[in-house]
């Protein structure tokens, strides 16, 4: 006995089925409302999630490096650093965790048809993410926060390293899942659903690895800019200069390395998009006509209604072709060659991509200058630069959001690229009223959480490290002796 509801569902019949069920324009209209609101809700909840998570990702690695240096050198400055930045880490950490639960629940709550149709392949990475990484991260974060007096110096440093490992690896598994939606591999369509046939192909999906590299380095860069910005604030105030110079240096080096890697991997990633998701790539560069030697316009304004660009600034010949396929005579498929209903929203994809790239290079430049001034020991002679770095905390946050807009909006109208449309993935029994309620409720809750988070982070970041850590030092040294 097959579950008959599933049996009747194929991507092609799904929309008409919903239409039949509703059997009126109003019904179709309501279906679109649910789709629209569910998309909006997913966008909102994942954007909030990606506000908190990159700091967790990057700061856990920085903390591990600080505490390992403390464990091996015994230099108490590193301990003080671990404590101060660890405090900010802990405030932020919990929000990454709880906003992650929403994302898992939403696949079933709002996207039931997608979960049913693709769950055989999509559920696996989510389960593995939990089993292999969430447990690691969550069990050891508890030990780390409460275990200062229970563990030796080295064991305690290993614990934060395991938290960092868990955080980074969890990004891998969720990006395996996301990459499969972008570039489906290792599957077969049978039994009226998508079934997994090659687990190896799933986890060696090049898109997954490129996304993993790009997203984690962007998280590392974000945390590094966070550390630099907060340190810059205290350096300007001439508060605990030794402590914040050391922190700044760690942040600057880490920011330069991760920004450079982020841009490098991002370049490969964009080239992979050109191969695997030509409609997204065409929207990213706003290319309308198929051709070889496609030029890169340093400035342009897309005009999707008339299928052209309203304004095109100075161009660099053949650069788009070259960037995508490393050769000038490579053919780029233009948006006109995709049916109108299979094109992503061009404005959003194009502008987000341009702005993200700009922010990436700005981050590279800023972190290069930061490293330069640090090693020349002239940092304190550049107060304007320090001021700029405080504001620049926002840059990687913005860049990360824009990057996800390119990835997710650029994939539209597909939920699984080329296989299933987003509108086909919606839960069929959920009403507009229900999604309104959840959207508004989650929106209010998340906004208040973000306000509290920012308030607490700012408060403790401004306060600076405790001047006197001797109370704590005594207990640790007694313990390790």
């Amino acid at each position, binding site marked *: 006995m097959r579950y008959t*509801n599933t049996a009747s569902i194929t991507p092609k019949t799904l929309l008409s089925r919903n239409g039949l069920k509703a059997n009126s324009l109003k019904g179709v209209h309501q279906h679109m409302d649910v789709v629209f609101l569910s998309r909006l809700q997913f966008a909102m909840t994942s954007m909030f999630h990606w506000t908190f998570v990159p700091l967790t990702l990057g700061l856990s690695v920085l903390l591990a490096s600080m505490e390992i240096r403390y464990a091996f050198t015994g230099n108490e400055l590193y301990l003080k650093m671990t404590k101060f930045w660890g405090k900010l880490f802990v405030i932020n950490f*919990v929000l990454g965790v709880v906003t992650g639960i929403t994302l898992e629940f939403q696949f*079933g709550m709002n996207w039931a048809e997608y*979960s049913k149709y693709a*769950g055989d392949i999509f559920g696996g990475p989510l*389960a593995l993410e939990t089993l292999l990484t969430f*447990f690691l991260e969550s*069990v050891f974060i508890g030990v780390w926060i409460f275990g200062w007096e229970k563990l030796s110096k080295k064991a305690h440093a290993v614990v934060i390293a395991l938290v960092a490992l868990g955080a980074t690896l969890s990004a891998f598994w969720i990006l395996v899942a996301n990459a499969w939606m972008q570039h489906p591999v290792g599957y077969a369509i049978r039994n009226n*659903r998508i079934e997994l046939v090659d687990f190896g192909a799933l986890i060696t999906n090049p898109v997954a690895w490129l996304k993993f590299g790009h997203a984690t380095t962007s998280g590392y860069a974000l945390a590094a800019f966070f550390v630099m910005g907060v340190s810059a604030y205290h350096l300007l105030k001439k508060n605990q200069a030794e402590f914040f110079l050391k922190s700044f240096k760690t942040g600057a080096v880490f920011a330069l390395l991760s920004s450079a890697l982020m841009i490098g991997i991002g370049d490969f990633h964009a080239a992979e998009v050109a191969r695997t998701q030509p409609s997204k790539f065409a929207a990213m560069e706003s290319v309308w006509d198929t051709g070889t030697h496609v030029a890169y316009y340093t400035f342009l304004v897309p005009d999707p209604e008339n299928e052209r660009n309203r304004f095109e600034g100075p161009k660099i010949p053949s650069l788009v072709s070259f960037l995508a396929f490393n050769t000038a005579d490579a053919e780029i498929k233009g948006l006109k060659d995709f049916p109108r209903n299979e094109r992503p929203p061009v404005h959003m994809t194009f502008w987000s991509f341009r702005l993200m790239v700009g922010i990436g290079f700005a981050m590279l430049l800023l972190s290069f200058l930061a490293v330069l001034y640090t090693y020349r020991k002239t940092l304190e002679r550049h107060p304007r630069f320090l001021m700029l770095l405080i504001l620049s905390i926002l840059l990687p946050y913005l860049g990360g959001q824009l990057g996800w807009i390119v990835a997710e909006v650029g994939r539209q109208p597909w939920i699984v690229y080329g296989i299933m449309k987003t509108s086909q993935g919606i839960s069929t*029994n959920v009403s507009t009223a229900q999604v309104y309620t959840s959207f508004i409720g989650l929106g209010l809750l998340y906004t208040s959480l973000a306000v509290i988070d920012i308030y607490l982070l700012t408060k403790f970041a401004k306060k600076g490290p405790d001047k006197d850590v001797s109370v704590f030092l005594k207990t640790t040294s007694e313990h390790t002796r």
Partner: protein
Amino acid sequence: MWVVYFLLDGFVLGAGMLYPFLAKDSHDKKILLKTIGPVWDGNEVWLIMVGAGTFAVFPAAYALLFSYLYPVFLLLLFALIVRGVSIEFREELFVRGWRKTWDGVFVLSSFLPAFLFGVLFGNLFLGLPFDAIGYHGSFLRLLNGYSLLMGALFVLLFLVHGSLYASLKITGPLTHTALHTARRIWIPLVAVMAIVLVLTSFTTRLGDSYRTSYALITVPLLAVLALIAIRMFLAAKKPFMAFVSSSAVILFFMTSGFIGLFPNLIPSSIDASHNLTAYNASASPYALKIMLITSFIFFPLVIGYTIWAYYVFRERIKAEEVSDETSSGY
């Protein structure tokens, strides 16, 4: 996995509901919070594991359950988000009213999941109203008498479980308060459990599984025996064994429920031919094989380091160790 989650988060939820009532002052509250501080996050991951595991192994059941019970999962989501935040943020500030607010939020957000899980399983035992067309239920229909009683059962069970756990992790007079509370809540727990067991055998189809093999009745019987054992061990002043017993109640009660449901995952209350079963809702054999292999490797590892974490915090929390300073671990 449900069982492990309830065993572990059961006492966190229970302690969460109780702690402002057990505590005389803010110092007591800190001690009680410290019993769950290091472990709540790891315990909650078992719930994420239940969700993701169901998604991977029974995708159709996952999709159906979460979308049909949209309001239930939404409330659950709110509670879980707020609970996690209140545990962590409560300690950050000394502003007037700040902690009081988070205390209230924490109690409510510990109560709500316990109650909702009861309602959820009550409705699973009864079956959900769906057929070929779709779902015909509503949120209010989920709150039927039987499910509300199940909700009460879960709350009471977790309260006892939580106060027993707390009594094991603390010292001094607070220990007695916790044990006394466990004793008092035990009485309504027994009453509600009795009604639930009787109602379950008459109003649900769970009894059918037991009629196929009478030997299976030992499982619910063990749950009842464990329930009685809690009181006996409390009288004998053996709180650890009482905690083991309350764990056994959860283990055997949930197992009884799953035996009763089997092979169904989500039975339909209006058309049995649409029951979602372990066979028709499962993932493909290949995907299941991958999950099985990885589970065999990694679950022992997870359980291993979880036990280690509990071992690190094995000592009872001494009252004088907990200062009134801000912040959790610093």
